[in-house]
């Protein structure tokens, strides 16, 4: 008997593992929003570089922001940011240490609602600041 053929253990194929279960799909969508954050950070960092290079460079960056491709990208980024903000606080009860208030564990829904509420407040504040500096 040849040793190799005798021992061929079954290895479960991992290709497409995250499509097998809606839970895994949601997990991968959540993780994928990190790419959106990365893309937006690159866009903003490029803007700072262009601003430092002077008015012509800055106007070129602004022009690029007005292109349909950029607007489409930012629409996708906006959806991703909403998904990220929602899921970040959705899983927060599992990612942070347990909190005890008066001997009882703080409810998961409380943590989630405080997080989502904070996100809404910050969003309104940023938007109000942008309006305050309106051209």
């Amino acid at each position, binding site marked *: 008997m040849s040793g190799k053929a005798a021992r061929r253990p079954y290895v479960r194929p991992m290709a497409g593992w995250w499509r097998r279960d809606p839970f895994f799909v949601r997990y991968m969508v959540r993780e994928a929003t*990190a790419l959106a*954050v990365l893309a*937006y950070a690159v*866009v*903003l960092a490029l*803007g700072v570089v262009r*601003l430092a290079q002077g*008015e012509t460079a*800055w*106007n070129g960056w*602004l022009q690029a*922001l*007005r292109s349909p491709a*950029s*607007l489409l*990208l*930012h*629409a996708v*980024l*906006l959806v991703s*940011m*909403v998904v*990220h*903000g929602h899921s*970040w*606080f959705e899983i927060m009860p599992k990612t942070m240490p347990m909190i005890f208030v008066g001997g009882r564990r703080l409810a998961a829904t409380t943590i989630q609602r405080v*997080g989502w509420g*904070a*996100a809404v407040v*910050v*969003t309104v504040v*940023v*938007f109000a600041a*942008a*309006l*305050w*500096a*309106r*051209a």
Partner: protein
Amino acid sequence: MKRSNAPIFWLLFGAGGMLSALLGTALVLVTGLLAPLGWVLGPAWMDYPRALAFAPDGTLLVAEAGRGEVRRFAIERSAAPAARE
């Protein structure tokens, strides 16, 4: 015992995730959609003079830390020299 460097990276991960969860939506909406389209915020929200300093009327503020003073420069679209206050 060798110390783990994991806490540093978890801290960066957590801080970045938290900041983008709180600020990301509003920032993308403002800098990526509203300002380039000129919606709500006006057409010149990210124009060069305004992007340099953030005074709401477009005034350029230059702080001279060594002399302990702040100078205001009025913004003009022409090439005329900026007024000094």
